[in-house]
Every structure is written in structure tokens, then in C-alpha cells.
């Protein structure tokens, strides 16, 4: 039998790159950045990039695991509460005489436990992640607030609080970008260049088919939630040191900021679609916009409106795009939820979600 051979790609590289959604976000980021540099007073100063990265660092970090979780079609709303819990732990332990590295280690372990608890309920008990993490959002935050009560721990050694804000050499980049870059590379390798990462996409596109091809759906989700807990805890340590203050109400509302940025970065809330470079661009885009608007003395409310609009518009644009392509393919998409009740009974792994 003379086997057929195939081209690897239907379209040339430049077309594939241009049509990708990530490209649009990166292009928008570049445009907004260039515009701000030339039009916004003081935006081209040396501090802009530094502060922008300091502010965005926590979101950038947490966005890494969040991207993967959303690609599997799940969501983690408890990240900011994990940040707070980790912050409170670092503070409390430090107050009781533990060194910062030790306290940080314990906090990361606590983050792993938080993530594992979410992951267990979602992946192995089969509960919807939206409901589970709304619950743990309140639970973890409650433990954080309860632990410190009225106190705020602020007497951190300067060695450590300075580290969180240090510049790399003489550059305008803060040191925190180093762990971020290391983690970003690891996550990018994991998501885009391993079999595990392929499984993550498969789960989001069709978790039933993934299960049938031997992807361990439950374990994959569990691991992602654990990663999310660990990275959130790390971000919690960073936030604590950066502000030199451990409080139960640190990072309130951060979860929605992370999710907004991830979605803006081109990840589909339905799962199965998205890439880390888009997400990073999404976070930075929000950072650049907020920073430029603040420099223009625009108040936070207007910034919020703009970010909200951007989010709605960007999501609508994907859905219109996909609607258009689907229409041109003449396909009526049947929902991924099987109409057959048997599968739901047969295995708890396939939680129907839309």
C-alpha cells in the first residue's frame, strides 16, 4: 500500500500567526504602550515599568495556573483568599519568631493544601468548580481574617521587604520578575510542550474523549488546582513583603482581576482555547491601561469601566468570530453536554458544564 503523505500545515506561518487571537492582544498591547509613551505625560519615565511590574506581578503569577485551569473548563475563584491566607500565615509565623524563608515555606505548603482541597472536591468528588471555589473563597478568607483578627503584622525585616521591591541591577525591572519568568517558562513548557499540557486542552475541548484516550482527567485537574494553590501562596508572600503588611483583607477582589485578565488574554471560558503568551499580554495590557489612565489623573471608577468594557467586548468578539466561522461551516454546534443521562451516572468525572 503506498501511503499518502500530507502537508503539515494548511496555511503559511504568517497567516496562522496573524489570525491567532493572541496576536490581536499583543498587538493591542504594543499599540497602547507606544501611544501612552508618546501621549501620556511621565509615562516614559523610568519608574513606569518598575511600578507596573510590581503591581502586576501577583496577577501575572496567579494567571499562570489560572490559565491552565480555565483551559480545562474549570475555574478557581479562591485564589485571592489563598493569597490572604498565605499572607496571614507568613505574618503570624514571623511574629512567633519563625524566619521569613521558613514561614514562606509553611505558607506555600498551606497553599498546596488549599489547592488540594479544591482539587479533591472538583476532580474526585466531581462537584462544579464554580460552586466549590465560591465556598472556599469564603472559607479561606474567613480563616485568614479570623487568624489575625484586628491585628496586622507589619514588622518584617527590611532585608526581606526591600528584596520584594529591589531592582535588578540598575534596570527598571523589579526582582520579582525573575521568579515570574522562571515560573512562566515552566508553565509554558508544561502547557504547550508536554503530553500533560495536551491533555489539559483535550479536557477543555472534550473531557469525555480525553477520558477515552487515557487522559487522567481527575488527576490532571487535581494537579492544576494544587499548582494554583501553591502559586497563589507564593504571590501571597510577595504581596506581604511588598507592602510590608500581613492582613486578612489583603488582595480582596484579586480573583476577579486575574480572571478578567486571563479571559482578556484570549482564553475561552468554555475551555480548550488559549495560550500563555496571550494571557501575559492580557495582564500587561490591563496594567498599561491602568497606569496610563492613573497618570492622566483618571479615577479608578473610569478605569474599572474601561476594563469591564474591554472584557465584555473581547469576549463578545471571540464569540462573534466563532459564530461566524461556525456559520460559514454550516455547523449547528451541539453542546458538549451529552444528552444521554447514562454518562453522568456512569462516571462522576464528566461534570456537564456550560
Amino acid at each position, binding site marked *: 500500500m503506498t501511503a499518502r503523505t500530507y502537508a503539515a500545515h494548511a496555511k503559511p506561518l504568517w497567516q496562522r500567526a496573524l489570525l491567532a487571537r493572541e496576536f490581536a492582544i499583543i498587538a493591542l498591547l504594543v499599540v497602547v504602550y507606544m501611544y501612552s509613551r508618546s501621549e501620556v505625560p511621565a509615562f516614559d519615565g523610568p519608574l513606569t515599568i518598575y511600578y507596573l511590574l510590581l503591581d502586576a506581578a501577583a496577577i501575572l503569577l496567579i494567571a499562570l495556573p489560572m490559565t491552565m485551569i480555565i483551559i480545562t473548563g474549570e475555574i478557581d475563584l479562591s485564589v485571592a483568599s489563598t493569597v490572604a491566607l498565605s499572607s496571614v500565615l507568613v505574618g503570624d509565623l514571623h511574629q512567633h519568631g519563625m524566619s521569613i524563608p521558613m514561614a514562606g515555606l509553611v505558607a506555600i505548603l498551606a497553599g498546596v493544601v488549599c489547592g488540594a482541597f479544591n482539587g479533591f472536591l472538583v476532580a474526585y468528588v466531581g462537584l462544579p468548580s464554580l460552586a466549590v471555589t465560591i465556598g*472556599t473563597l469564603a472559607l479561606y478568607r474567613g480563616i485568614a481574617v479570623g487568624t489575625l483578627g484586628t491585628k496586622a503584622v507589619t514588622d518584617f525585616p527590611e532585608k526581606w521587604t526591600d528584596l520584594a521591591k529591589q531592582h535588578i541591577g540598575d534596570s527598571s525591572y523589579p526582582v520579582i520578575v525573575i521568579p515570574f519568568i522562571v515560573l512562566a517558562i515552566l508553565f509554558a513548557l508544561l502547557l504547550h510542550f508536554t503530553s500533560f499540557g495536551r491533555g489539559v486542552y483535550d479536557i477543555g475541548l472534550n473531557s469525555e474523549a480525553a477520558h477515552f484516550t487515557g487522559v487522567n482527567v481527575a488527576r490532571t485537574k487535581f494537579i492544576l488546582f494544587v499548582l494554583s494553590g501553591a502559586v497563589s501562596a507564593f504571590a501571597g508572600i510577595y504581596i506581604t513583603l511588598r507592602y510590608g503588611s500581613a492582613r486578612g483583607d489583603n488582595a480582596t477582589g484579586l480573583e476577579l482581576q486575574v480572571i478578567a485578565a486571563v479571559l482578556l488574554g484570549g482564553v475561552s471560558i468554555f475551555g480548550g482555547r488559549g495560550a500563555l503568551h496571550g494571557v501575559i499580554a492580557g495582564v500587561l495590557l490591563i496594567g498599561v491601561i491602568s497606569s496610563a489612565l492613573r497618570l492622566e489623573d483618571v479615577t479608578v471608577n473610569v478605569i474599572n*469601566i474601561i476594563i469591564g468594557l474591554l472584557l465584555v467586548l473581547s469576549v463578545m468578539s471571540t464569540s462573534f468570530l466563532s459564530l461566524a466561522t461556525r456559520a460559514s461551516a454550516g455547523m449547528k454546534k451541539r453542546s458538549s453536554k451529552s*444528552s444521554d443521562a447514562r454518562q453522568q451516572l456512569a462516571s462522576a468525572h464528566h461534570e456537564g458544564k456550560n
Partner: protein
Amino acid sequence: MTDTLVAPSRRSTAQRVVSTILTSRESAIAFVLILVVAAATLNTNSFLFSEDGWRDLLLTPAILLLLATGQAVVIITRNVDLSVGSTLALTAYLTGRLFVDNPGIPIILVVLIGMLAGAGLGLINGLLVALGRVPALVITLGTLYIYRGVVLSWAGSNRINASDMPDGFLSLGTKSILTIPVLTILALVVLGIVGYYLRTARGGRELYAIGSDPDAANLYGLKVRRRVIGAFVLCGALAGLAGVVYAARYGTISSGAGQDIELQAVGAAVIGGVAIFGGSGSVWGAAIGAWLLITINRALPILGVQDFWQQAVVGALILGAIVLDRVLATRRSRKLVEARDIA
């Protein structure tokens, strides 16, 4: 929910009703609520047996009750509305502004305008979700920011004070009929109407059908989009009403009103047995869930639990509720599968 197997049950209607009530999720939550009230009352008599204690027990949950009712309707259609807190802030501020800018404006008109404004915001959500085919979670996350930003820009640092609003309106916040606060009666009437509609009107049942299986609903020929939009409008209108109630109850309104209340509304619905993926649950359950959340918040300090721990208790409650649901559902379906062997 009836647990009967394949063959028609031979039990009488009365028996069936009794057993349904006894085994329902709503009564389980109501039971927990009674326990909480009893424990707090044993500890401090005045929690229940004082004029103010009794009034607060009934009155404090009114706002969340309205929000949870609307939220439950949306969740039943397999959607969610995160923007209710921002909607509440907008309509609460609008209420105050109406009184400030139009002295002598009839109260009933203000209530209507508040509800209409809320309905309008709900309509925006509904249109974006139904026509844009974008998940409600994302859309309403976006409108949460946008609506909140609008109040902040509009109100700025302006605050509406009690002295800006007529006494007739403010007294709504505390007036009682037969010891039952007026606002509670209002919330209960709304709850009754919505609950009755969901249970006995065709449109209400269609909401359940849509949430149960949206594709089947389409195949069946139900007007899915219209109903989903309707659910969002209702939810918005109730959030609008909640805004008016907020103004009457608290008397001061700033742009930060109702921050973070959206997750409480979703939590109340979930605790009350509304499945997060639609199709089942009732507004009664959501209402009792709201009542429980608020009452626990009030009871904890009395029970000697520092109020810093309240949020943790709420979280544990939500998790307990969904895990319980899963356990019961698994048990029920196993029974149904095994029943096939016997049949």
C-alpha cells in the same frame, strides 16, 4: 422531590406532600436555621424575645432575600448574575438622588423607577448573554465592573444622608405591621409571587426545562433566548428593588453600597439547594439560604464566636451544602439504576 421508582406510587396526596416536605432540601436548611436561632436565643434571650431582636431577625435578611430570589431564577436557567451588587448600588443611589432632586416625589414612583432601572441593567446582561452567546459568568463579571464604575463616577464622593430622604420613606425601613417589618413583608410578597410563578406558570416551568437541558429545550421549541433574557430582567428588577430597600433601611448611601454581596447571593442560592448548573432548586430554598446566611452572621458573635470567623463559617456552609447535594444525588441515582434490575 419524589423518590418513587418506576411504578406509580400508591400513597395518598397528603402522604406524598408530607414526605416531600420532610425530605426536601428546603426543610433541611430551615431546620438548620431554626437550630441557629434557638442556640442564639438560649444564649441571649433578646435575640428572639425582644422587640428589636424579633424585628432584626425578620428585617435584616430582606435585602439578601430579594437578591437571592432573583439569583435563583437566573441560576435555574443555567446562568449566573454577578452584577447584582453593582446594580443594587446604582439603584440605591438613584433612589437617593430622586428624593434629593425631586422633593415631594411619591414614594411608590421611586420604588417603580428603582425596579425599572434594575430591570434595564438586567436587560443589558440578558441581551449580551442570550444574543452574544457568551457565558453569563464572563458577561456579568464585566458588567459588575462597568455598573460599579458608573455609580462611582456618578456619585463620586457624594453621599446621600438620611436627612436627604423623606421620613415617610425612611420609616418604611423600620415600620411593622403586626410586628412584621414592612420591608420583610415586601420581600416575602415578591418571593411568593416569583415562587408561585416558577411553580405554577408555564413560563416558570420552562425556565427549569431550559436549565435542565438547553439543547433539549431548543429541540423542543421553547423560546430559550426570550426566557433567559426574562430571567435576567427579573433578577435585575429584584436587585433594583433591593437597592430601594437598601436606601430605606440604611438611610445613607455611598457608591460602595452592596460591594461583594453578589457572592453572598449566589452562596445563598447554592446553600438553599439551587443546583449551580441549573434545572433544579427553588426560590424558597434560596430565600431560606439567604435567611440562614444573615442569621448566622448575626448569631455568631452572640454565640461567642468572634465575628472575624463568620466568613469561614459561611464558606463551610456552602461547601457542606453542595457536598450533601452530591451525596444525595449519587444515592438516588444508584437506587434508580438498581431498580432496573428488579423491574
